[in-house]
C-alpha cells in the first residue's frame, strides 16, 4: 500500500469512528437536556412585534419556525401527558404577529386552544380572540368565520355568537353555501347533536391535520353513540309503558318486537341495559366525548 493509501485508510477509519462517537455523544446530550429544552427560551422575547423588528425582514420565515414550535409544544404536552399549555397562546400570538396571513396558525391553532382538556388547552376565549385577530387581518377568508362559529358553538356554548360568525362568513365572496345553513341552524337551540355532528363532519372532511381529523372522528363516534343511547332508552320506556316495569335484558325488548337483536356500539361491544331503563356503553374510554351514560367526565 502506498503512503497516500495508508493515510486515506487510516483517515477513513478515524472518520467513521469519530462520526459515530459524535452521534452517540449528541444523543446522550439530548437525553440529558430533554428534547424540548429550547422551548423554555421561546418566550425570552415575549412580543411578536419586537421579534418582527429584529427579524431583518425575515419575519415570514420566523413565523414558520414559531408555528412549528407551537405545534411541537402542543404535541409534546399532549403526548407527554403533562397537559400544561401555558405557552400555547403566547406562541400562537407571536406566530401571528410575525405573519398575520398564516391562516393555518389561526385555523388549527385555535382548535388546539379551544378544545377541552385532555385534547386541548381548554381556553376557548383565547381561541376566539385569536380567530378574530385572523379575521381582522384576513377579512376575505370565510373559512376563519367558520372556525370562529365552531368555537363559539362547541366550546363557548354561545349559539348566538356562532350564528353571527356563520352569518358574516356566509356574506364573504366565495363562501360555500352551507355557511348560510349553518347560520340558520345556529339560530335554533343549543345542545343540538345533529348540528354538532354536522360541524364535526365538516372539520373531518376539510382539515389537513391528522390529529384534528382524529379528534373529529372521536367526536362523531361519541355523537353517534349518544344518539343510539337516547333511542334505546326511548324503547326501554316504551316497554315500561306496556308492562309497568323496565326490561331486565335485551331479549325482553326483542320479544316485544322493539329491537331486532342485541344492540352494539360502533366498536362492536354490546350496550349495557340497567334495571332503571337507562343504557350505558361497555367501554366509556372508547368514547371520550360522551357526556352521559357513565362516560368519564371530559
Amino acid at each position: 500500500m502506498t503512503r497516500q493509501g495508508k493515510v486515506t485508510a487510516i483517515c477513513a477509519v478515524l472518520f467513521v469512528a469519530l462520526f459515530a462517537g459524535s452521534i452517540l455523544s449528541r444523543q446522550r446530550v439530548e437525553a440529558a437536556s430533554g428534547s424540548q429544552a429550547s422551548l423554555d427560551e421561546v418566550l425570552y422575547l415575549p412580543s411578536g412585534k419586537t421579534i418582527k423588528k429584529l427579524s431583518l425582514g425575515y419575519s415570514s420565515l420566523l413565523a414558520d419556525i414559531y408555528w412549528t414550535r407551537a405545534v411541537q409544544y402542543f404535541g409534546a404536552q399532549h403526548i407527554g401527558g403533562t397537559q400544561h399549555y401555558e405557552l400555547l397562546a403566547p406562541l400562537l400570538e407571536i406566530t401571528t404577529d410575525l405573519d398575520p396571513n398564516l391562516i393555518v396558525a389561526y385555523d388549527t391553532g385555535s382548535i388546539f386552544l379551544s378544545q377541552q382538556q385532555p385534547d386541548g388547552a381548554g381556553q376557548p376565549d383565547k381561541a376566539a380572540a385569536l380567530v378574530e385577530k385572523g379575521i381582522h387581518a384576513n377579512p376575505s377568508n370565510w373559512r376563519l368565520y367558520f372556525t370562529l362559529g365552531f368555537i363559539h358553538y362547541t366550546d363557548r356554548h354561545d349559539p348566538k355568537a356562532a350564528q353571527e360568525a356563520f352569518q358574516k362568513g356566509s356574506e364573504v365572496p366565495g363562501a360555500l353555501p352551507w355557511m348560510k345553513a349553518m347560520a340558520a341552524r345556529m339560530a335554533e337551540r343549543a345542545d343540538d347533536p345533529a348540528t354538532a355532528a354536522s360541524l364535526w363532519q365538516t372539520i373531518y372532511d376539510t382539515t389537513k391535520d391528522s390529529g384534528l381529523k382524529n379528534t373529529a372522528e372521536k367526536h362523531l363516534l361519541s355523537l353517534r353513540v349518544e344518539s343510539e343511547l337516547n333511542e334505546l332508552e326511548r324503547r326501554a320506556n316504551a316497554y315500561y309503558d306496556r308492562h309497568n316495569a323496565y326490561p331486565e335484558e335485551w331479549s325482553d325488548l326483542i320479544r316485544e318486537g322493539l329491537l331486532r337483536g342485541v344492540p352494539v356500539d360502533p366498536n362492536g361491544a354490546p350496550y349495557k341495559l340497567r334495571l332503571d331503563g337507562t343504557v350505558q356503553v361497555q367501554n366509556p374510554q372508547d368514547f371520550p366525548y360522551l357526556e352521559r351514560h357513565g362516560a368519564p367526565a371530559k
Partner: protein
Amino acid sequence: MTSRVSAITWNTFREAVRDRVLYNLVLFVLLLVGSAPLFSEISIGLEKLMLVNVGLSSISLFGVIIAIFIGIGLVSKEIEKKTLYTILSRPVRRWEFIVGKYLGLLLTLAVNATLMAVGFYAALLIFVHGLTAADASLLVAIYFIILQFMMMIAITLLFSTFSTPLFSAIFAFALFVIGTFGNDLKNFAAMSKGPNKLLITAASYVLPNFASLNVISQAAHNQRVGGQMILLNTGYALCYSIAVTVAAILIFERRNLK
C-alpha cells in the same frame, strides 16, 4: 512529526496575530462589553444580566466571525501565494499541514477568547462592583464557546480544502446558522414520518449542533450547568471537530495541487 505540526501551528498563530483586522474585532468586543452598562441605564434590574448577555454573545459571535474569515484562507491563501508548494516540498505531509493549520487557528481563537474573557470579567468587576462564586459558572459558558470555535474551525477548514474563500465563507456561515437551530432540526425529525424522518434525522446528525453548546441564557441567570453536560458536550465537540478535520485531510490528500 510533532515538531513539524507545531511549527505550522506556531506560524499560523503568528500570521493571525499580525492581522490587524483581528485586533479591531477584539477591540470592538471589548468596547461592546464596556458599553453594556449604558444599555442597562434605560431599564431596571438588568445591569448584570445585560453585561453577561452582551459580553458572552459578543465573544461567541465575533469568535465565529474570526474563525470563518481566517479559516477560509488557511489553505486557499497558501495556494494563491504559492507558499504551499514551498511547504510541501519540504518533508511536511499534507495531513500535518492541515492539523497544524487547525491547531494554529484554535490557538489564536483560544488566546482571543481568553483576552475577551479577561475584559469581560474586568467589566463585571468594575460595573457590578465585585465577583461572586456564582460568576465562576460563566467560565463554563466561555468554555462552551471555545468548543463552538473548535467545531467552526474544522468546518471552515473543510470547505477551505476544496472551495474558494467566498463560497467557503458562505457555506461555513450557513452551517453556523443551521447549527444554532440544531435542536429544532431534531424536533422536526421527531415529528416527521416515513422517508422524511430518516432524511431529517440523518441531516441532524451530519450537521453541527451548536444549540446545546449555547448556555449564555443559563449563565446569565446563574443556572448551574451539570458536570455530565460539560463532559458530554466536550465529547461531542471533540468527536465532531476531529471527524470533520479528518474529512478535510481526506480531501486534501487526494487534491491535485498541480
